[in-house]
């Protein structure tokens, strides 16, 4: 019995130590530089805000901090879509001019491996720009650095929020260099195949409402190849 009394607390301490090491793993970096940003390709940048109040519409299973909006939008409560989020947002160019509409579908990915600091999300963008055409972007995102540096500190904070400055690239694939795959649809982008990355610039996050000050940027390479 006395061995059991010593063993059980030891196991709890061991598990806690392991989780602490996983959380503070010094070998996990925060990707801030993408191969796209250091190449000489011509790029197009589209920025958006995932903050519900600044978006056109947001929906999820209703249990996420960012509540579905506007009022009356249906929640994704069915088992097949419970782990999916949809964002409909205006897209602005580098001058801040509204140039299009983006619809982002994101689902928790079964390739998530917390042991490897990988909180993976499968996401696709359906983008339409009136002057230019439409695009489809397919990517796998690793949200671990975002969760580690923004969401968890907010949850652990006694004031239930986080304020600061955090920048990171969330795109982790499927391209060999960790880039997203872009397929053109209509207009100027018809037959267009390229690469992109998505990055996030966070300023505030609250447990009650999710992102409070956050900007996302899609950087798309314009060195088009033609789809065969």
């Amino acid at each position: 019995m006395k061995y059991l009394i010593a063993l059980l607390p030891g196991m709890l301490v061991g598990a806690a130590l392991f989780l602490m090491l996983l959380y503070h793993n010094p070998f996990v970096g925060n990707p801030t530089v993408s191969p796209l940003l250091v190449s000489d390709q011509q790029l197009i940048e589209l920025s958006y805000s995932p903050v519900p109040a600044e978006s056109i519409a947001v929906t999820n299973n209703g249990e996420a901090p960012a509540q579905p909006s506007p009022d009356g939008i249906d929640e994704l409560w069915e088992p097949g879509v419970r782990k999916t989020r949809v964002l409909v947002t205006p897209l602005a160019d580098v001058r801040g001019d509204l140039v299009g509409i983006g619809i982002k579908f994101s689902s928790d990915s079964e390739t998530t491996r917390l042991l490897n600091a990988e909180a993976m999300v499968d996401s696709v963008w359906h983008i339409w720009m009136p002057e230019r055409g439409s695009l489809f972007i397919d990517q796998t995102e690793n949200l671990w650095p975002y969760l580690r540096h923004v969401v968890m500190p907010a949850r652990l904070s006694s004031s239930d929020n986080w304020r600061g400055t955090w920048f990171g690239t969330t795109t982790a694939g499927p391209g060999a260099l960790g880039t997203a795959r872009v397929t053109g649809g209509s207009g100027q982008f018809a037959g267009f195949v390229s690469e992109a990355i998505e990055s996030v610039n966070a300023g505030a996050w609250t447990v009650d409402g999710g992102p409070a000050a956050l900007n996302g940027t899609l950087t798309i390479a314009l060195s088009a190849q033609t789809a065969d």
Partner: protein
Amino acid sequence: MIRTFSIGILLGIALAAGLLYFIPAVDQHREASMISVLPNGGNAETFHINLPEDQLLSSPSGTGEVIPGGLEWPQESGLADAQTGLYKLRNRNDIVVGVASRVTTADSGNDSAVEWTLHLPARGSIYAMLQSTGDASGVRAGSMLAGTREFANLHGSVRESFLDATDETGRIELVAALAGHLEEAP
């Protein structure tokens, strides 16, 4: 006592690592794929949307109703020209298996087109472009431009039809007929 405690620590570390390694952190709900095999070796799968209950969003367009009522759509030039819809997507058994967006574009100087993105969380996504006008029976045909995960190496056609449609109710049926790329014989 100290030695047992130390052994407990090691066991705790091993147990936590083992649990994280063997138990998946994410397990997406899966429905069986309801497919029909095509003569070319591909498969056809039918999805549908029940209106109005599966409509999550509808942008302002013509006399159509804006859904949800409080939706504020940007009024900037050009953006109001596209009709955007967001839907829940059902399989042949009437079970929700994904979400979908439909954008009808009327691009400046270009032909208009109907675009669909079908997102099935457990399987992948399909991006398809359809003709803006349907045939005599109202069926719009088009092709899949891109696919992800399960659909990544497939190509084929997508057809859209409105069934039992009135102003506010009805059913949108989407049939994806997809096949793998043919490989050249050695």
